[in-house]
């Protein structure tokens, strides 16, 4: 989604997000229906990323639009609507996740690539990258495990990797939604990617060992 489209809407319709906001404030139900039509899929996808469950994601989507409707009077029209709304959706999903369970977290430092003292990669533990693209069943399994590894990250890292690499949102938009600098976004995203890559490498290591492969850097 481009910066421009955020304010103009995503489906080419004449009414911008701001037009819809104003109409909803005025009690226009048709505008509410149009807003839901415009954003329900993205809110669902975001919620699914946090909750990893279709039923919870659906309920969180409902609650997000209910919150939107109830709080829309407070929306500052000088701000970008979607950035505000995305934060509402994120908070809703995390609120539901907290009620559901206390999620286990690991330190972002815990699973990063390893280097020798002179700065060379320790090469024993990376996965066969071709598995991810050549074998459909393995790709599905890897994706499921990757989702688990995202879930174990601290929230600051989960949000950026989900928005950037799963939702494929532009960096500037993510930074605005989360209220962080582009530099902070890059740092968090790279660390999160390294974490997931490393965790995927760790689960592939037994298979490599079983095959008799081994190397030390």
């Amino acid at each position, binding site marked *: 989604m481009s910066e421009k489209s955020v304010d103009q809407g995503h489906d080419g319709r004449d009414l911008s997000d701001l037009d819809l906001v104003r109409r909803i404030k005025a009690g226009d139900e048709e505008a509410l*229906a149009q807003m839901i039509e415009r954003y329900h*899929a993205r809110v669902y996808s975001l919620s699914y990323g946090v909750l990893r469950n279709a039923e919870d994601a659906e309920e969180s989507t*409902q609650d997000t*639009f209910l919150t939107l409707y109830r709080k829309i009077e407070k929306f500052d029209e000088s701000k970008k609507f979607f950035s505000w709304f995305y934060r509402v959706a994120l908070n809703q999903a995390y609120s539901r996740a907290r009620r559901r369970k206390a999620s286990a977290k690991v330190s972002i430092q815990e699973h990063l690539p390893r*280097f020798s003292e002179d700065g060379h990669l320790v090469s024993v533990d990376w996965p066969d990258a071709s598995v991810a693209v050549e074998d459909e069943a393995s790709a599905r399994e890897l994706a499921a495990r*990757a989702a688990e590894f995202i879930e174990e990250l601290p929230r600051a890292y989960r949000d950026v990797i989900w928005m950037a690499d799963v939702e494929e949102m532009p960096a500037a938009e993510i930074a605005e939604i989360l209220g962080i600098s582009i530099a902070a976004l*890059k740092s968090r995203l790279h660390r999160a990617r390294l974490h997931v890559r490393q965790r995927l490498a760790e689960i592939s290591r037994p298979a490599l060992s079983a095959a008799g492969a081994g190397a030390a850097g």
Partner: protein
Amino acid sequence: MKKTKKGAAPPEIHCHAEELSCKSLVMEALYDFEEGTMPETERRELERHLEACPPCVRFLDSYRATGRTLRALKPREVPSTLARTVFEFVKARCAKK
């Protein structure tokens, strides 16, 4: 490097790069390299490292494979009735107030 499976010749996995370290490449430079936001001189330096460093080439492959795996996580199917369900839900809840 000790051995590989079934006595085959072991792959060459040592780093022979002399300028940029593997650690700097992986921890500091890789993001901008992959995003295409790296200055040209630094990009060339990184590419020279990759030419001399099979471990970093393999690391880069796995980093990219991780990206492909993550993109596959996006839910492909949104419930077809969701928009209508949400609208009815909001209307019903607000009518109660």
